[in-house]
């Protein structure tokens, strides 16, 4: 009885203290996330050039979007990028993570794997742009010296998206591998020992132990990287600026150009809302399909 009567004031005190600590983050969330999102949704129903008041146009922007071939093309280009980027990155990261866990304990190797991630996207993009330049890049000089034809990596419609996707794989694979590596650490070692006693091969252990137990972490990593991948912008901006002939005009780049180049903030907002819907749908779907919330450990 006495415990029950004394606990409510403490809880109230905790609540107030929690509110104080939460306030800055909550304020940040309201000011920098919720409010811009709501305002963005509102602006998607307006014609707005930033300098004169927004004019309500109803569903006009969405109607235009549905009939805009460049929008659909940029969505297609973005999906193509995401598939190549995430596909290769996830497989490579998983391989690196497993190798790091099973073969070495070296902190130096882990550090080296992470090195490209320490470089900013823009710098990474520029360095690769110069390496891969068709006429002057050292990469193409080597290809030419070997007797093969130069490859217009960033200047050809077929090559540009795969090249940008691979540049970003190079930059992000180490980080993704470390996230997966952390997930692998949570798998109890005795499972591998037991399997080894039973005569299981490394390959079999990977499919029967590592993959099932890593699934929740892998799912979260996939959701995060897919969202990040859909938002590709900086690498495109510095290497191809959406070209050649819109071949790398990814959705974020098209949105940026519409807003800050053509001052069509209403239309850009409508496309941003569309991107939000697509990403939310993909996230929910991924979460469900991969049962990310549940673990098989237990």
């Amino acid at each position, binding site marked *: 009885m006495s415990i029950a009567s004394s606990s409510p004031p403490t809880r109230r005190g905790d609540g107030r203290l929690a509110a104080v600590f939460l*306030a800055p983050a909550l304020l940040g969330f309201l000011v920098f996330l919720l409010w811009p999102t709501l305002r963005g949704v509102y602006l998607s129903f307006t014609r707005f050039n930033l300098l004169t008041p927004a004019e309500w146009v109803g569903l006009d922007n969405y109607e235009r979007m549905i009939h805009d071939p460049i929008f659909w093309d940029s969505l297609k280009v973005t999906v193509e990028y995401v598939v190549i980027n995430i596909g290769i990155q996830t497989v490579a990261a998983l391989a690196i993570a497993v190798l790091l866990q099973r073969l070495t304990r070296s902190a130096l190797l882990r550090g080296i794997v992470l090195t490209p991630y320490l470089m900013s996207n823009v710098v990474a993009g520029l360095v690769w742009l110069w390496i891969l330049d068709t006429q002057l890049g050292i990469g193409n000089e080597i290809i030419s010296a070997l007797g093969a034809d130069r490859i217009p990596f960033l200047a050809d419609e077929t090559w540009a998206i795969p090249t940008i996707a691979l540049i970003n794989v190079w930059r992000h694979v180490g980080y993704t591998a470390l996230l997966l590596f952390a997930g692998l650490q949570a798998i109890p070692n005795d499972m591998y020992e037991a399997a080894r006693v039973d005569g299981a091969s490394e390959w079999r252990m990977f499919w029967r132990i590592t993959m099932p137990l890593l699934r929740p972490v892998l799912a979260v990593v996939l959701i995060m990287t897919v969202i990040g991948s859909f938002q590709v912008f900086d690498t495109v901006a510095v290497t191809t600026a959406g070209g*050649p002939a819109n071949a790398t005009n990814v959705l974020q780049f098209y949105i940026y150009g519409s807003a800050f180049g053509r001052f069509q903030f209403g239309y850009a907002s409508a496309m941003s809302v569309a991107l939000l819907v697509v990403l939310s749908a993909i996230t929910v779907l991924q979460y469900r399909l991969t049962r990310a919330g549940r673990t098989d450990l237990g």
Partner: protein
Amino acid sequence: MRLRTLTALAGALTLSLVTGCAKGDSTGSSASTVTYWLWDANQLPAYQACAKGFEKENPGLEVRITQLGWSDYWTKLTAGFIAGTQPDVFTDHIQKFGQFADLQVLEPLDDLGIKDSDYQPGLAANWIGQDGHRYGAPKDWDTVALFYNEKMANDAGLTAEQLGGLSWNPEDGGTFEKAIARLTVDRNGKRGDEPGFDKNNVKVYGLATQGGGYGDGQTQWSPFTGSAGWNYTEKARWGTKYQYDSKTFKSVIEWYFGLAKKGYMAPFSDYNVQSNQGNTQIAAGKAAAVFDGAWMISTYNGFKDRDIRTALTPVGPTGRRATMMNGLADSISKASKNKAGARKWVAYLASDKCQKVVGDHGVVFPATPAGTEAAIAAYKKKGIEVSAFTEPVDDRKNFRTFSYPITNYAADVTALMQPEMEAIYGNGKSVNSLDQTTDQINLILDQ
């Protein structure tokens, strides 16, 4: 009690941060200062010298100059208009003029007494908006000419006289195409006009690639479309019908990009706006000649171990040569906090006094005839021959100069024309697709 104090303190801190951000004013503008932005680093010392003269004449007024690279310049300027941190005065480009006029961010300058006759022909008139008000004071001009590697020309047996007397036509390319072919050398040392030339393995291209040229083709196809008699729109300024669907335009474009198919001009895949523009190809010895603007004179003359000369643009089917003549201006922001000071500074910038000082630096051609003369003399002192750029302005009989297209929705036109021209150049798309793009553009302009 303590909690409440803590809450209040946290609240006050966050609020002060938020309001602090909003109140921040990076312009430093006040009644005694005029802020001024420009993008060309080469021109900064010239305008600093001008500002000194201005400050001497206007005690108590200080000019604060900021130089930003081309891309950052426009992004920051746009952000400045929105946030109220724009400069009082800024260097303005015709390409952006229509958009800024639409957005109503420019201050009318009618009372500055700018007269057309005080400047090189056409420069002052370009800065009159559709509403009849003036929004820019002419500061400089540029034209386009053919830069070429002298040694490569000598090796090809082409003299300066020959390169300055070329002509072209869209059927067989005329002597211009012959010269470009002659300047082209393949991996085996065969020239473009020799039997056995391997167009798929070219070592040095006759003409460098400058990309697709967006909707203006300033340093790409405009010397040709201009000398074929074609115009961007149905009237010189504020037209509402672009003419990219005309037969003349299409035939010129087909021939021009066709130079790449023949192996005489570098392919589109060699171009990159960031890493490999025409001047880089010339510097690297990968191309012998390139069309480029007067603003690049210092760059080409700065190349080590390469003597770069200039030649006039070729004579076209109309019997005249042609070049775009573009001019920059100084504009005042409508939201300027020191309009009186800004007006004084712009008037000074547009005067012979300042333009002669700028001309003396030999980095750009100022808009007034006296300023232009000073620049020619300064270039001469540096040993740089600039007649290929000035002749088009002096010799109106044999030259046609035309302006950058001045219309509304310039950014939309660029957004549609860039991929279109890149697809024609890079992917061999038919020039007839220009019909549809032109319809789209004109539909936007009809709004």
